Every structure is written in C-alpha cells, then in structure tokens.
C-alpha cells in the first residue's frame, strides 16, 4: 500500500521523533508513505493570521503538488497542517471564484482531488488492521489522550470524530492494550502558536491540561500534533512555573505508543528525543505485561 504523505516542517525539525515514529509504524504495517514532491510549509497560524490569500495559497500549493503527482490521499500527521489543508480544500471547493483566484496565484488549476487524512484516521483505517494480532508488548499504561483543537474543530468542516469528548484516539490506545482515562481536557487549547511569543500563556494553558491528566492518574499524555507536543514537552519549564509544581509525566506521540506496542525499538521511535524523559512508574507486582520488550524497558533513553 502506498499513500501520499505530508510531513510538514515540524516533523523535519523540532518534532523529528514524530516523523521517525510515523515512518517506523508505517513500515511495520507494510505501508509506504510517499512524501508530496518538493512540499512547502503550510503557513501554519502565521499565514492566515496575517494574510488571507497567503493563508490559502501555501496549503493550495501543497495540494497542487500532490494532485499533480496523482496522489489520492495524503496522510498529514501534524494536526495544524491537517487543519490548514482541510480548511483550504473546503473553502476552495465551496467557492469557485476563490478557487480560481488561488489557482492563479499558485499557477496550477487546482481541483482539490487529494483527500486529507489525519494521523488517527491513518492509524485506525490502515495501520491497526495490518497489525491486529501482532501486538507484541501491549502498551499497558493509563494515559490521557489529548486531541487538541485542530483535529476535531471546526467540526462543520472536518467532520471527524465527536466534537466534544472525541473517542478515536482512545480507541486506538485501547486496541494496543492501553487504558485511556476519561478526562476533561481532550480538546482544550494548549496555547498553540503562542509558544514562542507568549510563552507564559502557553504555560498556563498547557499547565491546565497536564494538571487534569495528573489528577486523574495518567502516566503519560498521548498527543497527535507536534505543536501540542512541543507545548507539553518543550515548554515544561513554563508550565511548571505557571502551575507552581513539578510534572514528570511524559508527552508521547500516538505513533510512538503504537510503535512500542508493535515492539519497535524505542530509539527508532525517537523516544530519546523528548525533553521530558519517557520514564514510566514501576508497576505494582502482578501487573507487569508479559512481553520482553515492555515499554518500561524504554526507561530513560
């Protein structure tokens, strides 16, 4: 199986481990991910905040590149990129005049053919069926599945999962043997693009998320977006300052969790790259899973 793939800038840089884990999991499931040729940045928050045409044209060029390469579906692991591409596609399909204008800007008559698939859809529909029965070391952990804003909103456009209290990531965690907690901050905002410019705000917003996960006894927060990850991981200092307490709970990408369950070497999943060490609590006796490559073995890498 071959699928189009748009990594986005973060996965090539600060969230390299996300890329590594997506690739490792895909390979493990026998799926080939083919990057969109010569892709560019989607413009993230900055572009649409500053300039409407730019905010549409940058994602449109990505769509154009994929369309020209004959890609029918593009897997987009970054929730922010996913949102930009989905929204752009939606707007252009809704408004023919706009589609023509943007097509002129990007010098390509875009038909918006490629479908955009987020990481949860990718895991659910492609990876999980392929690895069913091959869970080597169940990811037997109590975790908080954190979806963030952009995976489910605006529901009117994305039409993905339930708007409040989504379930798809929880379902994947359950299928790899995990125990997703019921919590209240699944889709609360982490502070997103204000990471650099308003770090203290991010500290507070992300702090509330970690705090709720902590109260409910999560051992880790599972994420599906590099932006969420960097706010919850990289910005741990700001969080601890805002909340006035320490948090040792790691933030792990969903693909890393799936990879661990598949028995992929933690280093290949980039688990060593996190700022907050991926270290799990000792389990009470009798709760240790059978697998030799228990994620506990990942320890601090």
């Amino acid at each position, binding site marked *: 199986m071959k699928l189009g793939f748009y990594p986005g*800038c*973060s996965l*090539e*840089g*600060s*969230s*390299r481990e996300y890329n590594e884990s997506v690739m490792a999991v895909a390979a493990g499931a026998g799926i080939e991910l083919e990057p969109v040729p*010569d*892709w*560019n*940045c989607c*413009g*993230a*928050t*900055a*572009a*649409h*905040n*500053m*300039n*409407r*045409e*730019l*905010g549409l*044209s*940058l994602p449109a*060029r990505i769509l154009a*590149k994929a369309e020209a390469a004959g890609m029918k579906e593009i897997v987009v692991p970054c929730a922010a990129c996913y949102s930009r591409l989905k929204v752009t596609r939606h707007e252009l399909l809704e408004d023919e005049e706009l589609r023509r*204008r943007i097509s*002129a*800007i*990007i*010098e390509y008559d875009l038909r918006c053919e490629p479908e955009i698939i987020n990481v949860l859809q990718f895991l659910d529909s492609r990876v999980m069926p392929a690895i069913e029965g091959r869970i080597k070391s169940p990811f037997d952990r109590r975790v908080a599945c954190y979806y963030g*804003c*952009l995976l489910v*909103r*605006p*529901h*009117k456009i994305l039409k993905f999962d339930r*708007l409040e209290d989504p379930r798809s990531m929880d379902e994947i965690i359950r299928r790899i043997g995990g125990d997703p907690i019921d919590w209240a901050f699944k*889709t*609360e*905002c982490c*502070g*997103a*693009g*204000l990471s*650099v*410019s*308003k*770090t203290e*705000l991010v500290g507070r*917003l992300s702090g509330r998320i970690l705090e709720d996960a902590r109260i409910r006894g999560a051992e880790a927060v599972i994420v599906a977006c590099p932006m969420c990850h960097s706010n919850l991981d*990289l910005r741990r*200092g700001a969080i601890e300052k805002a909340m006035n307490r320490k948090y040792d709970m790691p933030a792990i990408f969903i693909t890393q969790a799936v990879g661990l369950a598949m028995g992929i070497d933690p280093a290949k999943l980039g688990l*060593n*790259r*996190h*700022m907050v060490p991926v270290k799990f609590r000792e389990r009470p006796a009798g709760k240790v899973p059978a697998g030799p490559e228990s994620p506990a073995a990942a320890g601090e890498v």
Partner: protein
Amino acid sequence: MSTDAHHDKATASLAGAILEQTGVPVDKCYQCGKCSAGCPLAADMDYPPSLILRMLQAGGPELEEKVLRSYTIWVCLTCETCYSRCPMEIDIPVMMDYLRHESLRLGMTSPRAKDIIRFHRSFLDSIKYTGRLYEVGLVVDYKARSMHLLQDVKLAPKMYFKGKLNLIPETIKGLPLIRRIFSRSSKAGGEDAR
C-alpha cells in the same frame, strides 16, 4: 454617541464589511456569551469575543477602531472553541482573521501584540526564504526583532543535542514560485507579507 454614525450607512460599517468579505453575520449574535465563556484566552483579552461582536454590532468609528486596535484579535489562537459551540454558528475565528488583516492594513495593531506579530513575520519570512520553516532561523530572527535575546537560551542547546534542531536550512526547488505567491498575495491580501 459613537454608535449613531453607521446606522444609516450600514454597508460602510466594519460589520458590513465582515459580512461582505467573510460571510460572517455579526448581527446574528444575540450576546449569549457562550463564546467568551469557553474561550481559553478570554481572560487575557482586552475584550472577550462576545464583546468584540457587541462592539461591531453597535458600530461607529470609535468602537470599530477599538476593535481593530484590540489585543484580542492577536491573542485569539483560532482554537475554534467559540465557533464550535456558538448557538448561532457565528464563525468568530474567520472574523478574527479578517479583523487582523484590517488592523494590519490600517496600521492599527495593538502595541501589546507586537511580539505576536513579530513572530508571525519572522515565521513568514522563513517560509519566504526557504519555502519551509527554518526553525533556527525563525527563532534567531524573532529574537532580533523582539529583542528578547535571552529567551529560550537554555532550551536551544538541549534541543540541539536531542537532534531537534536543523542548523542548515532546507530550501525547496519551487522557491521562485513561493516568492511569487508571496508577492501576489501581498498585493491581494491584507498584510504586506514582504
């Protein structure tokens, strides 16, 4: 009173322009406040989202200028919480985008939003020069612009050692087109994207 002016010239109002340019009907808002109640940034805003809508409804040059000069429009993160819960389905994030563009165009940006805007500029510049985000360049550029020279100094080396920073920017082949997209968009869109 500031509200009188636009009543007979509804189309010239900012609310009228929003409707025309984005299709977002400001008048439909019945001020329930659900958006402000759920907005994660409301506490940090000078005017919570429902208040922005009220100011636009009342209209008039004074209130409209206050909206365009607000910090709110820059601190809004497009998290879409408001839109997804608004009983009147008012697309506040799209409206915010438009207000930001207008604010830039008219040079009315809030002084409190300087850093946010600088960061966006650095971000776009990075794309413009390489086609992709060059994170190191972005941070360096932003620091220079914002003069927050010491911010994150402890983080960077750690990131580097974790393999999270690319020191050499990657440049895409289609860069000339990206440049053209930038220049065309700056002509058509709100902000001079340079």
